[in-house]
């Protein structure tokens, strides 16, 4: 059975509580870069499917990693935070278009920074107006210092794994050995098969000391050599060597 190949870490290693400090730092830096006021704060939120907030441009997403809420209210909140002015509910369509254009690079930068946390390059991750497909998301409501929700960030499990892995100091790998050398040093058991005989199960049950089984091979015939118990192309004859058994290889089997 096959399935999609995904990087893996134990569940405990990718629990939102473990990832939260990195997300909080990233959001704080992003906030300081874009907003003149107090930075937004990221907290652990409830697991809600992205579809609840609607599609059609209501989300910006970075491939399979993360999505950020980007509906009109989020756009107004972001633009308002950037301009340090409250955006009135009476904003016109033109105002809304301006706010969306102003807020989009800010939202995309958040996704870019999150991808950076995961060791991924946003330039190769298209930012698209789609929610995350995966239902196994972690949710990070971004709130003002006063606790007012501004927007929500969703990260996939793949993102959590990537962030956790990227945050671990990489071990310096030892150089790999030559595969040829490793194989050459591998030990193999060579055994000589003198012959075989087929025995009915009933006879095998009744087999007793003193019985003689006749093999299918003649003494002068070359023996099969087995490698780790499996047939091989080698054959040999049995030679005496001061009482010890010794094999002399004959031409290989075809």
């Amino acid at each position, binding site marked *: 059975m096959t399935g999609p190949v995904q990087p893996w870490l134990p569940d405990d290693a990718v629990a939102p509580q473990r990832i939260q400090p990195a997300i909080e730092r990233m959001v704080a830096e992003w906030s300081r870069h874009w907003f003149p006021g107090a930075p937004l704060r990221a907290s652990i939120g409830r697991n809600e499917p992205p579809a609840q907030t609607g599609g059609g441009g209501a989300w910006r997403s970075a491939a399979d990693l993360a999505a950020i809420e980007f509906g009109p209210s989020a756009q107004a909140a972001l633009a308002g935070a950037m301009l340090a002015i409250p955006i009135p509910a009476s904003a016109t369509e033109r105002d809304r278009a301006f706010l969306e254009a102003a807020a989009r690079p800010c939202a995309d930068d958040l996704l870019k920074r999150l991808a950076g946390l995961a060791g991924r390059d946003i330039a190769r991750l298209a930012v698209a107006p789609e929610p995350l497909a995966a239902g196994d998301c972690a949710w990070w409501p971004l709130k003002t210092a006063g606790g007012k929700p501004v927007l929500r960030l969703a990260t996939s499990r793949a993102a959590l794994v990537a962030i956790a892995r990227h945050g671990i100091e990489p071990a310096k790998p030892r150089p790999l050995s030559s595969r040829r050398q490793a194989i050459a040093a*591998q*030990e*193999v*058991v060579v055994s000589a098969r003198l012959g075989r005989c087929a025995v*009915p199960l009933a006879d095998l*049950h009744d087999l007793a000391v003193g019985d003689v089984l006749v093999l299918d091979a003649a003494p002068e015939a070359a023996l099969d050599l087995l490698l780790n118990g499996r047939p091989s192309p080698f054959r040999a004859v049995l030679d005496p060597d001061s009482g*010890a058994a*010794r*094999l002399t290889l004959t031409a290989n089997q075809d």
Partner: protein
Amino acid sequence: MADSKSTVRLVEDPAAPSSPRIDERLIGAVEVVLEAHLGKAVLSVERLMQLKAGDSLPLDAALNADVELRLNGVTIARGELVSVGTNFGVRIAEIAQK
């Protein structure tokens, strides 16, 4: 909603004898293959790749050592190597318990 999966449940036949088993005599004619082996040598793959016709390979067994009889790779008996007419044979000297 009802489960649409079909299941098969084995039921006991009250008329059948309890704990039915296949009589061993019914499969007594089934043939299995015993293999006779004498000694072994342990070589590296490198040495193995260098082997050619005429090379000698000492085994870890004496010529008069008992031959092992293996069933599916498992040694179940040992015996003396003999000749029977024009063939090798093995006279059983030791056999595993049933």
